[in-house]
């Protein structure tokens, strides 16, 4: 990327720390934890019984009257993304069709929407009455299912679960007619979506983009998946606040949750022309891949993370020692944290000793496709406010993770912040944000 490095002019987030990005940032600064016992379903039979759940909301309060009907077609993932998008547009001072049809100040055809989304698993309770019509002798019977169950399922069922529906609903609500893409790279999806949006603006295919990600992982089968893979901690059910411990010696696994986080990316000329407030500029992007036969885990030497960071540094044209803060993926899964720490050190060398590291998932939980975008919002706020919050749940650093974890809150000017993501399946990403001056 050589020209038009986009700036970030709007933030929006729904996370376990609250229904706005301010709630997210103040929660992170105060060391709040959004993790608790699961209430979305009875978790007693699960190895991990805790998760990060967003505060209650009614989606009908967050969409224009004219399209309330379509909220029936929104899975939880879509609802979260819709709320975060509203906030991001408003925060950027953008008036879309949803807010005031007479005073729209975006060009719908020059606005893109690029979101990370997860594997949206179906609502089992919604499907169950249909399944009940397809049983013979206490077992599922596909012949009966075909005959009796199918017609009991709501006709538009499939459309609730297509990952591109996060972007499509938001596109309809706000009338966004430019490029629309949905990145489905699991826990790297949020950062990769922001990277792609930045490239679309840089190459001139849009002036403005809504980018980020959303995923609702507090769903029985989604949660089960992480339990079966031994990625969700089973050891802290009675101490949810202490459960997610990125880079800590007592880390026993991650804690999963739900969130959506969206940012407005904008061509700097466009932003200046309309006097938008600018949180930060995208300085560098890096993408690579971990290759591991055990592909639920990061490769032990962290090469995929290293390569992504090296590419981002090269794109930003800066040296490692210029970084003021690292917000790592840091899940609390021992092997992955160790590998990520290695990758970071291999990329940054001795500079690693002095750059503060602030992992967020101890407070927000691991929100899958939203996670990278949550971290970008934290990075924007760290740059804007000149604050690095104190890390939570990392009292005794794992001796194999040689990182400079931010133990206390630090007040300083942050010029460059690095965010990293990786995922099961391998895709890695690194984005460097820069204070815009």
């Amino acid at each position, binding site marked *: *990327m050589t020209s038009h490095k986009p700036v970030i002019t709007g933030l929006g987030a729904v996370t376990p720390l609250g229904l706005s990005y301010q709630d997210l940032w103040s929660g992170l600064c105060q060391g709040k934890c959004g993790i608790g016992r699961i209430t979305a379903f*009875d*978790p007693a*039979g*699960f190895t991990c019984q805790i998760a990060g759940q967003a505060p209650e909301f009614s989606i009908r309060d967050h969409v224009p009257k004219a399209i309330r009907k*379509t909220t029936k*077609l929104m899975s939880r993932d879509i609802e979260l993304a819709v709320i975060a998008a509203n906030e991001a547009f408003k925060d950027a001072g953008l008036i879309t069709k949803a807010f005031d049809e007479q005073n729209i100040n975006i060009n719908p*055809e020059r606005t893109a929407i690029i979101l990370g989304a997860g*594997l949206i698993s*179906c609502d*089992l309770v919604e499907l*169950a*009455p249909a*399944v*009940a019509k397809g*049983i013979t002798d206490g*077992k*599922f019977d*596909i012949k009966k*299912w*075909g005959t009796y169950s*199918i017609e009991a399922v709501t*006709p538009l*069922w499939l459309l609730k679960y297509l*990952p*591109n529906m996060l972007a*499509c*609903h938001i*596109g*309809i609500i*706000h009338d*966004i*007619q*430019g*490029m*629309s893409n949905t*990145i*489905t*790279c699991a826990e790297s999806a949020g950062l*990769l979506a922001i990277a792609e949006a930045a490239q679309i603006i840089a190459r*001139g*295919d849009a002036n403005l983009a809504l980018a980020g990600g959303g995923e609702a992982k507090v769903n*029985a*089968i989604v949660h*089960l*998946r992480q339990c*079966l893979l031994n990625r969700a901690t089973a050891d802290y059910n009675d101490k949810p606040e202490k459960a997610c411990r990125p880079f800590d010696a007592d880390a026993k696994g991650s804690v999963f949750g739900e969130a959506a986080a969206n940012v407005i990316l904008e061509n700097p000329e466009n932003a200046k022309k309309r006097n938008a407030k600018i949180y930060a500029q995208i300085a560098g992007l890096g*993408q*690579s*891949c971990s*290759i591991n*036969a055990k*592909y*639920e885990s990061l490769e032990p030497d962290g090469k995929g993370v290293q*390569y992504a960071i090296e590419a981002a540094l090269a794109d930003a044209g800066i040296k490692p020692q210029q970084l003021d803060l690292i917000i790592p993926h840091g899940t609390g899964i021992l092997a992955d944290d160790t590998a990520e720490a290695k990758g970071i050190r291999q990329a940054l060398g001795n500079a690693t000793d002095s750059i503060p590291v602030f992992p967020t998932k101890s407070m927000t939980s691991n929100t899958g496709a939203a996670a990278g975008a949550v971290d970008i919002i934290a990075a924007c706020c760290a740059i804007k406010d000149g604050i690095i919050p104190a890390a939570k749940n990392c009292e005794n650093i794992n001796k194999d993770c040689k990182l400079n974890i931010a133990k206390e809150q630090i007040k300083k000017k942050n010029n460059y912040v690095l965010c990293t993501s990786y*995922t*099961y*399946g391998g*895709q*890695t990403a690194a984005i460097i944000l820069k204070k815009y001056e």
Partner: protein
Amino acid sequence: MNEKTKNRVVITGMGIVCPLGNDIPTMWDNILNCRSGMNKTTIFDASTYPTKFCCEVKNYDITKFTKNPDLHKDGNRHSKFVVGAASQACKQAKIDVETENPKDGIDRRRIGIYLGAGEGSVDNENFFNAIVQGWDDAAGTMDWNKWAAVAFGKMQPYRELEQEPNMPAAHVSMLTGARGVIRSCLTACAASTQAIGEAFKILQSGQADVMLAGGAHSMIHPLGVMGFNRLTALSTRNDSIETASRPFTASRDGFVIGEGAAIVILETLESAKKRGVEILAEVLGYGSSSDAFRVTDMHEDARGAVAALEAALKDAKVSYKDIDYVSTHGTSTSENDSIETLAIKKVFKEEAKNTPVSSVKSMMGHLIGAAGVAEMITCILAIRDNVLPPTANLNDPDPNLDLDYVPNKPRKAEVNIVLKESFGFGGQNNVVIIKRYKN
């Protein structure tokens, strides 16, 4: 992007695993002979479904394409297919796979992957039986402890993991050792055309030298077919399976669901020349838009489709008059074929009726996320052989649809510039234009 520094991007390899064959020559021979890939559904028992047939990949043997089938053993159907497609494509493009010491001269950090890939099927028997055990239908409540007992007792970690849509990309990276820009997208039926378009842009701007671009998908499973049946999107012509997919006819009644994977190797011209590999075609332009209209329907004036077509022509710096052939989305649904025809008429104006357009979905079925790239391969072959692939089963043209759909048999023609279009649920529109390569 600075025009002067934009790289030219060419295609140097292709591979396919699809209902018409598990390699390029077999697939192409079947298309040129107008053969149907449709069959009674065998992947699961669909005998009581409204639609009892589909378009399955047949006799696929992954061991023909990999030395390490164990590495892919947990892969869902489409992840296994994509290993075959990527392996074929790399072979043609002379890219070494499954080796620690590649001798092809390409830095692995300069090889990327961009797939439009679908999710994997749920673990059907255990998925449904866990619900059966947990659900109290009379009370309308789920006993999650009972559900969890079955789920934890029966479900397998990798079987669950492999449902994630980024898994095909994981398998391709394991096969190739690619360490460059790796992304996977899922924009419904337009996904792999979008993947090709974005991969093209990544190469144009110099972020990689080589991209494996394409897609993989199989929704031929109980929930997938149910979902499309409920949307009444599928043909229910159970009495004439082979001719059920009949785009642009008056009697079309829905698409026929297919499955598969396809990969094209995109490469900067500089890299292809340096390596001395054969160039199959050049990528000229990409256009993408969204309808922002309805979740369920395409925009009635084809607004989004027209915008994507015009953006692609502009990006390719060609006129609609230069297009020799349009490979349509052509699903055989009432809505798509009408609105797609309208879009072509709006963009191609006086040339609309003189521009041949066709739908290979009439033979291959609809590969969903993988459809665009599979059809893109037929475009590359159309240029290579100067032949237009036909629309099969076009015996009763819809009187309102009056383009040249290349009915029922292939046609010899000079084919230099081809446009591929794909549309997806939710209003996703993607168009890529390719051209015969000339120095």
